[in-house]
């Protein structure tokens, strides 16, 4: 059943591309219907899959001569991420309700991107996974380049090239694994069982991990993320931060760690306490956490704050993955979900609710506008989202980051210490943005004071309220009752860590 999320997304994209132009409302409603149907299927699939392990959905020969199969399957991790994708897609369409230029094409690219993302999360053939992964690149480029803002063409090209370089690295790893295994199959399970030599895994692992890590915002390959997020239209930055970065993290987990587990073994020598690729990537993840948070603290553009906070939060995901502990990896997967929801919400508030009304994202200018009084909806939504982002108890981020920290403590305590500093800075930058944007006391200078009184902002529309409520409900639900996802994630992580993919 979950496979239909992919099919209806692509079919919806195709229909939207062919739909007669000029009827924006029809395109919107149609896109919403497709996204909501996908979400409904994802929920139903999630509910139906509870308590089950990996379930194969479709398994057909695709390119028989090369042993490539069209294998779609879902385990607990996939189901959670598919759920996230459905949620982000629905919220994204709602927050794009005000797109008036080339509406059909916007939603066509949007749904094509969503289809590719669903596909990656459900593929259990490495080749198929790669195909979906690359399908997701092109719509991103056009979404940003056509509908974006600040330096959009630059940001779009940068994002496309970074993604493509990453996927080229993955392709090299894929070709090498295919050639080395000699098993004449590209199924993830077959490759995991192919007994790839340790020496091979030692170089294939970092190659593929970095390849996917680029999209997951791995420091120092994260620079596409802030520029891309800022330039992208609201829905696209929600998707970028919400699900596309998760594609990278998911690839790191499913492909790099799943196929090349021995790549994480100790080298047998160490330099400055770094004795394996695991240490290297943990170090990069920790640097990403702290660096992202510090840079977010210094931003003057509201959206850049959120963009760099994404880098920081994705550092937790990567750190959790390389702990290789049950609790750490579980936390990483939960953090993927949590960050997907929270980052989506933050970008929506900044990019849609605030920017579309104030037409500025500069914190200094927002300071003078007293948005706390004039846009109470945005202020309160941001307070909630900010609390969730800081990782306060009762929100999904708390459980996720806690698990990652426990896992990293078990692995190497100093990782936890460093990441803990990142959390503290996280509180600081969220607080700073919140205070400056919404609750500042600064009075407008004379030159900032408009001559005909403060313009009235457009009223908050129902799609914004609906989507905000949806996202807040998701983060609170998972925060209050995390078992709803953990029951699904834990067994899948256990089997993945226990024996690769077998």
């Amino acid at each position, binding site marked *: 059943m979950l496979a239909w999320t992919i099919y209806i997304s692509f079919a919806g994209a195709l229909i939207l591309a062919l739909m007669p132009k000029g009827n924006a409302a029809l395109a919107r409603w149609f896109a919403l219907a497709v996204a909501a149907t996908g979400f409904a299927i994802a929920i139903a699939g999630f509910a139906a899959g509870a308590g089950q392990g990996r379930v194969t959905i479709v398994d057909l020969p*695709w390119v028989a001569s090369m042993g490539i199969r069209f294998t779609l399957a879902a385990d607990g991790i996939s189901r959670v991420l598919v759920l996230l994708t459905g949620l982000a897609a629905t919220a994204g369409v709602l927050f794009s309700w005000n797109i008036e230029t080339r509406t059909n094409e916007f939603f066509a690219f949007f749904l094509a991107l969503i289809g590719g993302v669903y596909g990656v999360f459900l593929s259990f053939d490495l080749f198929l996974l790669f195909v979906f992964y690359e399908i997701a690149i092109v719509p991103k480029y056009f979404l940003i380049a056509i509908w974006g803002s600040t330096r959009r063409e630059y940001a779009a090209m940068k994002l496309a090239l970074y993604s493509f370089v990453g996927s080229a690295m993955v392709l090299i790893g894929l*070709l090498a694994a295919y050639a080395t295994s000699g098993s004449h199959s590209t199924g993830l399970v077959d490759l995991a069982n192919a007994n790839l030599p340790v020496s091979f895994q030692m170089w294939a692992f970092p190659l593929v991990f970095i390849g996917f890590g680029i999209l997951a915002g791995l420091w120092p390959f994260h620079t596409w993320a802030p520029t891309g997020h800022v330039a992208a239209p609201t829905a696209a930055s929600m998707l970028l931060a919400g699900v596309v970065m998760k594609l990278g993290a998911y690839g790191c987990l499913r492909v790099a760690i799943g196929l090349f587990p021995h790549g994480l073994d100790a080298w047998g020598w160490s330099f400055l306490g770094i004795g394996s690729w695991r240490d290297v990537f943990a170090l990069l993840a920790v640097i990403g956490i702290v660096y992202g948070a510090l840079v977010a603290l210094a931003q003057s553009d509201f959206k850049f704050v959120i963009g760099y906070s994404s880098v920081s939060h994705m550092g937790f995901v990567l750190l959790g993955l390389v702990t290789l502990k049950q609790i750490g990896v579980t936390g990483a997967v939960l953090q993927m979900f949590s960050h997907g929801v929270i980052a989506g919400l933050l970008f929506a508030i900044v990019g849609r609710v605030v920017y579309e009304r104030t037409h500025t994202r500069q914190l200094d200018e927002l300071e003078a506008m007293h948005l706390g009084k004039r846009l109470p909806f945005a202020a309160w939504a941001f307070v909630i989202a900010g609390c969730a982002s800081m990782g306060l108890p009762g929100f999904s981020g708390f459980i996720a980051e806690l698990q990652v920290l426990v896992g990293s403590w078990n692995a190497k305590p100093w990782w936890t210490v460093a990441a803990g500093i990142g959390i503290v800075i996280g509180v600081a930058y969220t607080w700073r943005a919140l205070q400056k944007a919404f609750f500042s006391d600064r009075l407008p200078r004379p030159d900032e004071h408009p001559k005909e009184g403060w313009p009235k902002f457009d009223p908050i529309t129902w799609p914004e309220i609906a989507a905000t409520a949806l996202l807040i409900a998701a983060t609170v639900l998972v925060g209050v009752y995390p078992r709803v996802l953990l029951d699904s994630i834990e067994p899948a992580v256990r089997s993945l860590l226990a024996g690769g993919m077998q």
Partner: protein
Amino acid sequence: MNYADLFRVTLPETALEIAALLVLVADLAFLRKASLQAREMVASILGVVGCGAAVALLPLHAGGGVSYPGSTELMLSTGGYSAIAQVGILMLTVLTLFLVIGSEFTQHVGEYVAVLLMAATGGLLISGAQDLLVIFVGLELLSLGLYILTAFAKSSEKSAEGAMKYYLFGGMSAAFLLFGFSYLYGLTGSTNLHEIMRGLYSGNVQSASPLLYVALVMVAAGLGFKVAAVPFHLWAPDTYEGAPAPAAAFIASVSKVASFALLIGIGTAAVHVFDNLRNASTVTFVVGPIPKYVGFAGPWSVVVTLIAVGSMVLGNLAALAQTSVRRLLAYSAIAHAGYILLALGYFSHSTASTNAVLYYILTYGLTTVGAFGAVAVVERNGGSDRMDAFLGLYKRNGLLAAVMMVLFLSLAGIPPLVGFWAKFNLFAAVLGVNRGVVPFTIVALAVAMSAVSLYYYLQVLKRVFVMPAADPTPMKGNLVTMGVLVVIALAVVVLGCLPGLLQAWMGSFYAGM
């Protein structure tokens, strides 16, 4: 050999020649007063019928060919890879013929189509050639046709310039090729590829190995020119830019398919050099490691690989700087030739490499015909192939914009389009032959270079989709041209989603062997 055999095997070529003559007669004798459009229509349709007849007459599954008198060695092979290449050549010729309809670059339609068909005949011939003389004759037939086609837009300065450059480079490279061939003949005393390959393992040749290397480099220069490989690529940008669009499409597709088929023939002969000896029970064959630089295959592989690496690096990097879409396509063609040559440098004994190369060149040819068709439509409306002529195309002609998106993304190798499978297939074939560090590094370089290529393809698509039009009037394409473009784009998508189709089709040609 008897002449009845020769005639039987060359029936398709004969059919094309007859069609060429019929086109000339029809155009010059009966249609003198008719409109240009009507003449183009008649000439193209006659040409298409000729190609159809040639396909019907192709000895598809024969697995034989024409041999020399008193010998079992083949002069012209049929079936197998030759047949796949020949069918491909004829299909692509049909597509380029359709592009002629509605074009206005010449008044001499009959001559144009006739020369095109004759060039295609040369292509058919070299696809099956196993003899140096046949290769040379076929190659010259093809090349001479191409020089004329390039110069066909008589009112265009660029066309004349491109043709002149093409002709001068071509003449020189033909001289190189002939020089190399004469050394090969001198070393081995034969003009047959298989006998040459065997002869090169004999003791006398080993002592003269510098001569062999000279010969190999000369041959590589001659054939490298045909496929526009670095450093023999200098003609390509000017020719692609100057030639009338249908002719450029023909040069970029049909001529490439034929030349790569020839390279496959040489590669196949090189790796199958001892097959016949093993079969002949009178010869006792000592199995043992043959030193790498003895015989043909080893040194040839080095030469071809070097050319391949040069082509893919230089082609991709030079394409970054282009502002003319035709020149961009020319440099990207050089890069694509580099990828393909890589698979010819690491050539497998089984048909895996052959099929990978054919898959690549056929799908590349198809895509590039479409790309030139799209450029032709824009040129007819905007008068230029500069990138800026493509501004805001999505608004001026949405269908054309969609077609260009499919074709250019396929060239960049984005799945699920066919270009991606071609690349994957090709690189997998290279690694299937040799998994050592060197081939692996080169494949990694090739993959990295294809990441570079995305940049310049996106530069075109950015103008098509993102930037606003300077002149928002709708852009009309000729009905036939648009039809051909849509068919090509659909084929690129369908073959990309179901890559097994083409592989199964190619596999069917080996059934009888």
